[in-house]
């Protein structure tokens, strides 16, 4: 493995601070991420939660360094991996971080896998390009990997094309591909959304097993609070490009500190609330070229007052020290207190 200069094994595994990403389109500048902060330790699972379009995937892409530039630009902030700011690396150094240190799993494995190459080729490519292995050695490793992600008859299936696999199997291939080089950080972007429920559970189980075995840090990006509850250690809730609340999973579920989190929780159908009307969050998420002044959530918020409608947006409030939790709401006490 290539040695990354300035690496500090004692530094936090991954630390994102004050990250800003904007998309410069012909219709104006869309601020996709406006100061995201979170960290990840080895062996830990951090869930990033939010509605679609809130900037979850962009955050992941910014960490991976695979934003489409143009139109996407990281304008501010730091992404530190073991103390090294990835944003300051050259493209070539950055490229070597990918797959080696930080890997990613995508939502729709069918479109995320190249349809015209065999899975063996696509898996082996990682070894060939990063480890300089021969084609045959790379294929051998690909078979082993497929075995590890519990794909039956890996030896024969290695020469199949993505479209010949079922959805769950494809996602396993994706996972195998991400884990090929034993990365320390794995980012899973909605890994189970496209799958049916039983397969979802299998895949989540597999991910959890593999994480435990390798002591990886896992960032799980999802909009599904049900999935989160089972596997995550901590949760960051994103809204309109900001982390509006961050807390251990138990605390969030029991006492959300941000109205948005609260609204999300209330929109989960629960058995014990049978017969009651399911609550729905009013309105739509804002369009990013036209984010409301002040707190971006204010037009949809039951707690909103004048202060919420004025710039600047609410700062990061420390909700509690132990456990560490934060929220971006002027009235978080009120929200928790209820």
């Amino acid at each position, binding site marked *: 493995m290539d040695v990354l200069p300035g690496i500090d094994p004692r530094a936090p595994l991954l630390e994102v601070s004050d990250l800003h990403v904007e*998309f410069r*389109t012909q219709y104006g500048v869309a601020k*996709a991420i406006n100061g995201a902060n979170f960290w990840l330790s080895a062996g830990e699972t951090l869930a990033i939660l939010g509605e679609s379009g*809130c900037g979850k995937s962009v955050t992941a892409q910014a960490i991976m360094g695979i934003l489409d530039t*143009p*139109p*996407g630009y990281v304008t501010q902030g730091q992404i530190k991996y073991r103390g090294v700011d990835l944003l300051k690396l050259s493209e070539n150094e950055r490229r070597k971080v990918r797959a080696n240190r930080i890997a990613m799993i995508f*939502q729709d494995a069918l479109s995320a896998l190249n349809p015209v190459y065999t899975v063996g080729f696509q898996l082996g490519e990682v070894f060939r390009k990063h480890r300089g292995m021969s084609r045959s050695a790379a294929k051998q490793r690909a078979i082993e990997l497929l075995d590890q992600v519990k794909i039956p008859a890996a030896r024969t299936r290695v020469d199949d094309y993505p479209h010949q696999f079922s959805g769950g199997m494809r996602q396993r291939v994706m996972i195998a591909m991400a884990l090929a080089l034993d990365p320390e950080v794995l980012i899973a972007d909605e890994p189970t959304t496209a799958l049916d429920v039983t397969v979802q559970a299998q895949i989540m189980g597999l991910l959890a097993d593999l994480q435990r075995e390798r002591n990886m840090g896992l960032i799980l990006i999802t909009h599904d609070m049900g999935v989160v509850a089972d596997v995550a250690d901590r949760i960051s809730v994103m809204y309109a490009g900001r982390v509006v609340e961050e807390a251990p999973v138990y605390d969030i579920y029991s006492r959300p500190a941000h109205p948005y989190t609260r609204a999300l929780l209330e929109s989960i159908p629960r058995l014990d609330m049978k017969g009651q009307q399911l609550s729905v969050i009013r309105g739509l998420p804002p369009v*990013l070229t036209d984010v409301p002044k002040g707190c971006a959530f204010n037009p949809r918020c039951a707690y909103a007052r004048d202060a919420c409608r004025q710039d600047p947006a609410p700062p990061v409030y420390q909700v509690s020290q132990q456990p560490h939790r934060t929220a971006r709401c002027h009235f978080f006490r009120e929200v928790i207190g209820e």
Partner: protein
Amino acid sequence: MSDLNTVTTAEAPGGQPNVPRSPVKKDKPRSLAGDAWADLRKRKIFWVSVVMVAIVLVMAAWPTLFTTADPGACALSNQYKGPTGAALFGFDYQGCDIYAKVIHGARNSIVVGVLSTALAGVIGLFFGLAAGYFGGWLDAFLSRFVDIMLGVPFLLAGIVLSNRLSSDPKSDGIFAVTLTLGLLSWTSGARVMRSAVISAKNQDYVAAARMLGSKPSRLIFRHIVPNSIASYVVLLTLLLGINIASEATLSFLGVGLKNNAISWGIMISEGTQFARTEPWPLVWPALFLGVTVLAFIMLGDAVRDAFDPKLR
């Protein structure tokens, strides 16, 4: 020319946050066409090409707005004279006013180019759709027919068709040339359309629509065509240029425009003869032709980009 394609570049990739697809009009339902129009309106390149195409079309429709000179009034005594007051571009080999000829030549070139391309576009669309969508023996039959069409040299078919189609000695041959070019130039489009349809047909959304009981016609025109049309439109805008040029080749071979009809193609092939000593009679019509074709292609590109949600 500076930013011909910039408009197509600055789009958010799929799975991106809520970057607006068009100027925000809150809570108003948007149709594809409405979206596309809203999108187009913002594009500089769209307006540039629209203006250029409009100028050419006006030139084709009312040439006398641009010049009062008679393009047929030529005298050898004027041969290769430089620009004068009315004759902005000077005179050619025959002593004709190049400016007047270029202006008056626009009509035939545009009519032939646009109509033949439209004809070819329609034929190619239906052939490609039928072959690609229905497959089976129909595909085999149509594809082999296309093969034969492609195998028959343009020259042979052009000569035969033009001869058959223009029996009236008084006609200027525009109808015959248009029909000939239309009937001969649809084949490559048909093949491109066919392969686009075949790949679109296997997409999930088409399967889904089929499951939902869409009629084949609806399936084709609502689902497959809009998704396969992008590369086809690009090809057609190119074909327009090719057909305008092909008219010149047919005329050059004596089966094109007749009875002293003027067209850019004819002017260009005449100008080529003496280009070594007198380049201007070639340069002017070539410039007009080039700019016109370019305008159409730019327009096609902009419209294509606006209508193709994948590219937006």
